[in-house]
Each structure stands twice: as C-alpha cells, then as structure tokens.
C-alpha cells in the first residue's frame, strides 16, 4: 500500500481549487429540481435505505440500546418482505464489541467513531490508541475527526500526518475522515480539507459529526463530491462519500442521490462508495416505501423507533 501511494504526488494544499459560493449553491439547488417519480422513486428509496449508517452516538448509549439498534438494522420493517438492510451501524468504540456480536454474520458493517470524537481535542497517542481499540474490537470502519483547530491555523502538514497515522492504525478497516464542515467556515476550506484527507489516505470523506450545526448540506456535499471526482481523475483512486447529520427526510435523501448520479455517476451509486450518516432517515424512507406500495401513508406508530 505504502509503496503504491508514494507514486501519488502530494499537491500544495494552499493551492486547492477555489469554490464560488453563489455558484455552488445554485448548482446544488438545481439538483432539487429533478422530479423523481414512480419506479425511480421506489428504486431511489430502496437504494438510500441500503446506504444508511444507522447511528447512535450518545453519552447515554448502553449495550441494551446498541443491541436493539442492531436488531433494527437487520429487520427494518419485517411487515414488508424483501427490504434491503442498512449498510452499517455506527457507534462509539466502547460499543463496538456489542454491535459486532449483535450483527453476527448479517453482512452489516460496524463503524466506530474514534480519535477523541467529536472534538478531536486530544493527543495523537490517545487518538491512535482509540482507533486501535475500536479496530481490535472488530470495527470494520473507523470514523475519525480532523483537528479543526490545527487546520484553521494553517497547519496542513499536522492534519495530513495525523490522518495518515490513523489510517495506518486502522489496518484493514476503512477510514472515514470527518471534516466537520460546520466548523470550517467556507467552501474553500471544505475543498482544501477534502484534498488533505484524500491525499493522506482517507477511504471516505465525511461531512460532519452530527454534533455541530450546520451538519451536512447539499452544497457542502457537492464541494466534496467534486473533490472526489478531481482526485479520481488525478490518481485513478475512488474515494467514498458520507454526508452525515441533518438528513432525515426521504425527499432530501433523493436529492443527494440525484447529485451523486450527476457528479460521480454509476460507479459510486452503491453503499461501498456512498453512505448516509443518519438515524431518523430510515423510518422516513420506510414510510415512503410502504406508501409507494400501498398508496397510503401509515401512522408513525407502525414503524419501530430504534
């Protein structure tokens, strides 16, 4: 891996492409004008469901809560046979073992946040050991946070090295790098942070922790998708994308899929390359799926709330 990576030339990140705010927001709004009907709506809803990282990241999480969430992940709505499962369950490192056991060989991945999530305000040693602990307990994927303070200070090498070190600690686990775009302050910075993360070895780039508002937005995600596209053309390497936080409605999820389709295309249209970090989105998707099938909306009480 290391030898291959060395063939990629690391650019000067202070020269990352600029983003025009008005332009990117207009382009993002254009995706919302696509009208998704009938079978394309149904297929989109099922695809979105299959891309979810079902998430619980709370101080009050317990083994019991995580087990119930893992059951939900495998049995989204048994009243409707043939549904896909979600892509992964996302928990804190201390819950990885529980989740791994509960999910067994269902094929659903366990993702663990790490590196002093959500603030990232700790030493590198702590972050590395946090990561190693999650991986040792069976995490298939690690969601790390970047050091936003260092990034905003212009210490791009620090941020780069930290990501590279966490990537190494991940071993075979896939690394998602959370930029926490709500703290970066501009689209230019989102683009720069995306470039740093990808060149440093991220497998995914992810918008947000979900703890800061604003979390994922369409324009921020578009900036990141465009960064992924440019990186792909530059290096031939595909990077996955995960918008997280603030996506709770089906309609919005479909807008994201339209954007994905028109920016990166077919290769990214699956849960290996695109995820939604969300908790309440799943039930809204289920409600819409059942509505498409039956023609009427069911009460919320027909959908389990885990």
């Amino acid at each position, binding site marked *: 891996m290391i030898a291959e990576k060395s063939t990629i030339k690391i650019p000067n990140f202070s020269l990352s492409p600029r983003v025009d705010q008005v332009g990117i927001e207009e382009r993002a709004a254009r995706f919302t004008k696509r009208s*998704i009907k009938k079978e394309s709506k149904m297929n989109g809803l099922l695809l979105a469901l299959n891309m979810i990282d079902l998430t619980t990241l709370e101080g009050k999480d317990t083994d019991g809560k995580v087990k119930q969430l893992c059951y939900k992940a495998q049995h989204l709505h048994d009243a409707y046979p043939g549904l896909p499962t979600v892509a992964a369950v996302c928990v804190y490192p201390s819950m990885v073992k529980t989740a791994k056991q509960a999910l067994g060989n269902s094929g659903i991945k366990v993702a663990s946040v790490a590196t002093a999530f959500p603030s990232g305000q700790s030493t590198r040693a702590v972050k590395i050991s946090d990561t190693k602990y999650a991986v040792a307990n069976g995490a298939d994927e690690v969601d790390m946070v970047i050091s936003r303070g260092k990034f905003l200070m212009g210490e791009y090498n620090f941020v780069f090295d930290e990501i590279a070190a966490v990537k190494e600690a991940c071993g075979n686990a896939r690394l998602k790098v959370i930029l926490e775009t709500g703290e970066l302050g501009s689209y230019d910075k989102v683009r720069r942070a995306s470039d740093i993360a990808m060149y440093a070895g991220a497998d995914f780039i992810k918008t947000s922790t979900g703890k800061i508002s604003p979390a994922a937005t369409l324009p921020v995600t578009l900036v990141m998708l465009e960064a992924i*596209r440019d990186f792909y053309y530059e290096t031939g390497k595909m990077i996955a994308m995960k918008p997280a936080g603030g996506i709770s409605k089906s309609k919005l999820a479909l807008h994201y899929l339209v954007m994905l389709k028109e920016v990166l295309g077919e290769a990214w249209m699956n849960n290996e390359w695109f995820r939604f970090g969300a908790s309440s989105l799943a039930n809204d998707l289920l409600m819409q799926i059942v509505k498409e099938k039956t023609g009427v909306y069911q009460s919320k009480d027909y959908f389990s709330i885990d």
Partner: protein
Amino acid sequence: MAKAKNNTLKLKFDTSWNFAPAPESKSIASIKDKYDLFINGAFVKPSSKKYFKTINPANEEVLSEVADANASDVDKAAKAAHTAYDKVWKKMSGKERGKYIYRIARMLQERAREFAVIETLDGGKPIRESRDFDVPTAANHFFYYAGWADKLEYAFPNRQAQPLGVAGQIIPWNFPLLMAAWKIAPALATGNTVVLKPAETTPLTALKLAEIIQEADLPPGVVNIITGAGATGAALVNHPGVDKIAFTGSTDVGKFIQRAIAGTNKKATLELGGKAANIIFEDAPLDQAVEGVINGIFFNQGHVCCAGSRLYVQESVYKTVLRKLKDRIETLIVGDPLDKNTDIGAINSKQQLETIHKYIKIGQQEGAELHQSSCALPGKGFYCRPTLFTNVAQSSRIAQEEIFGPVLTIQTFRTEDEVIEKANNTPYGLSAGVWTDKGSKIFNMTTKMRAGVVWANTFNKFDPTSPFGGYKESGYGREGGLHGLNAYVNLV
C-alpha cells in the same frame, strides 16, 4: 491500484438508476383552435382572411391557427392605438396607469402555470425554464414598471417626461412572453400605447396575454396585439402613425428597420444578435465556471441573443475545463420539453434546426473538432445534442457568426491582453462573462469588454431593475431598469 495521471479514466453517467418520465400536465392550458387579432380591446377577424398554423416543435403537432395581419389590419391597430393614446391614456394619471399594470402583473402570476405550459408547447423550451424563469420574470417586469408609472418625476428630476405616442413593438421567438413584458410594461408606464407583433412561430402566449389585458379592463386600444410574419412587421415599421419602434431580433432585420425609418421622426431601440465571449482564467473556481458556461450556452437551447457562445479558456487549465465540460454535457437531459427533468428542449423551428446543422457542418469542414453528448434524441420534433467545438480559430465562421443554438466554440488564450482583444474582435457586443477569483482582474476586464452586459462569475442573470442592451451590431438603446424608461419618453 493507484496510477498517476491516467488519461483513460472516464465516469459513467448512464446509471442504472434513471429518472422516470415526469411530464407536466397539458390539461391546464386552454388553447383555442383559432386566434384572431386583438385590436381596440376585442378579438377581430383579419381583413386578410388568412390564418397560419403554429406548431409544437417538440412533436410537430399543430396547436392552433392564428390570424395573418396584412397592411390594413396593421393600419386598424395603429389607429386604435393612436385614438386610445389621444383620448384616454396620455391623459390618465400615472397612478391610474400603474393600477392597470399591477393588475396585469397579478393576473399573470395567478395564471403562471398555464402560461408556462403554453410557452413550452409553442416554443419548445423546457418547462423548468418557462416555469422558473420566463413567466415569473415577465410578471416581475410588469410589477417593476407599474411602480414607476406614478414616479416619473423622480426618474427624471427637474425634467418633464412626455410619452412618445404609439409604440410599434416586434418581438422574437426565443422568449415570447418575457419579451412582450419587456416591451409593453415600460411603454404603458410612461403613457404610450402599443401595437405588438409576436414572432410567427410563437404567438400563443402573447395572445393569452391579450386575454388577460382584456380581463384587466385596460382601456380599448391601449395594447393591440397582431400576429403575422415579416410582412406584418414591415407594415408596422413603415406605418406613419407609429412614433417608436422597439425591436428584438436578428441584426439583419435590425438593419432593415434602421433603413426603413431613416428620415422619419420615429425613435427606435434595437436589441439584436450576439456572440458573447465567456472567459475562464486559470484562477477561476473551475467547477462553477464550467456550470456557468453550460448554462450560458445551453439555456433555452442556446436560443439566447446574449448566450455565451464563444468560450475562451486560459491554456494552463484547458484540459481540465474541457474534461469537466464533456462530463457535464453527458448529464444534460435532452427531450420532451414538458418533462420536468428536461434540461434542453426542442429547437424552436425546423428552419432554425437546419441553420444549426448547417453551422455544425461548417465547423467540421473548417477542421474544428466536434464533441457531442451521447444522449438519444426523440424521433419526432426538432432536437439537437449539446455540442462543443474545440480546435477553433478566431477566423472560423463558427466563432464569428451567431448560430443561435446549443453550440459552443472553445478557444484558448495565454494572457489577459490577448483575451480582451480576441473577445472584442466581433461585430457584436451584447454580453460577456469573466470567471476569476481575483477581484482586480474582474474590474480590469469589465471596463475593457465592449459589451452591454458583463457578468462576473455568473452568467445569464436578468432582473427588471437592470438595464440590458448592446454595443456595435448588437443594437442600441437599453431595456430594463431606469434606463428602460428613457426609451419611451421625450424629456422637456
């Protein structure tokens, strides 16, 4: 796995997840089988007794038949306008005139959906554009100029703004309703009366507007709408009772009008062709610049006089920009204009499609390299794939002549001075676009571009408050904004 700079990489946009058809319903649009001329507040039969068909360019089906006005119909309309001017309109207070214009604006808004559908049926433009751009902007023009009607003394401080009389207005087929609004609203606000002739391929929304004007109880003769082809327009231009000509259309016809009114007292504003330069510097936000270039040339199938049809890219970013453009045209949806997902609708007429094809052929003969999207085109109707030409020279005809279709020529440049010279090296001067992250460069470029409108880091932005018009063979006079009032008044 990771290879540096692989030039064979390609993204696949033909995905397994596709958009199902999402057509807007036609049922809201009531189109009569036959339309007469709107003269003196009523629909009257043409003395020519002739009618011509207007078709839907998306499927070549006949939508309706409209009257072909001859010289005596034009005379009738001009006289009605003159009487209305003398007896009613010029005496009416600005405040009262404003009320009528506000009423038209509101009624247009209320029936926005119907107008959008008819505009799309008759002209071929995507429903997304007629719904989100044409109709709302047309209503906004009426609202904006309604506001000026009783404030002319503030528009022209210490001067008295007197109306000119009867305005003969001839509008094109690319934005039928919007151009009618651009013309009618300032004329009425300043106290003029109007004879308007819409283009022969797209008369329906103007005739629907006549229905609104009738319902709004505008005094008879203040607005007259007559349909017909070139001969009708010529009769209007030459009519001695017309005091002002406002024309939007081709440069050839503009020159004809100028010859025709030479030696008369008629005032004129002409908004003619264009061959706008869109300029991308290496420091530009490239993805947004590419998006702006796409919208600049493919908006309304490229049937836009201010379309950014000549792209200049700084050599250092040429390959990247070209790649992005090629990827982007693959995701443009060409097809049924009534489908809400359509990005590029039907070419307005068979004749225009032939013109575009002629230029595409010329481009290839000139040695330019053709790139088109791989999309399928509907079997019936007039359609053209989004088209890019590279390897184009300044002396290529496709880079010099207005094509008025979805065809973009791409050239490279090295320095700022070079691109200013090249961009200005055209008989036209309607609009230009500059894409750079550097503010000082924007100011330098915008002062040196010989074009009526220069957009910076955006393109094709219109607002009723903003004046619009050309340099050189793109015409003279300004429409929109405070400047737009000027074209309809004598200042004493």
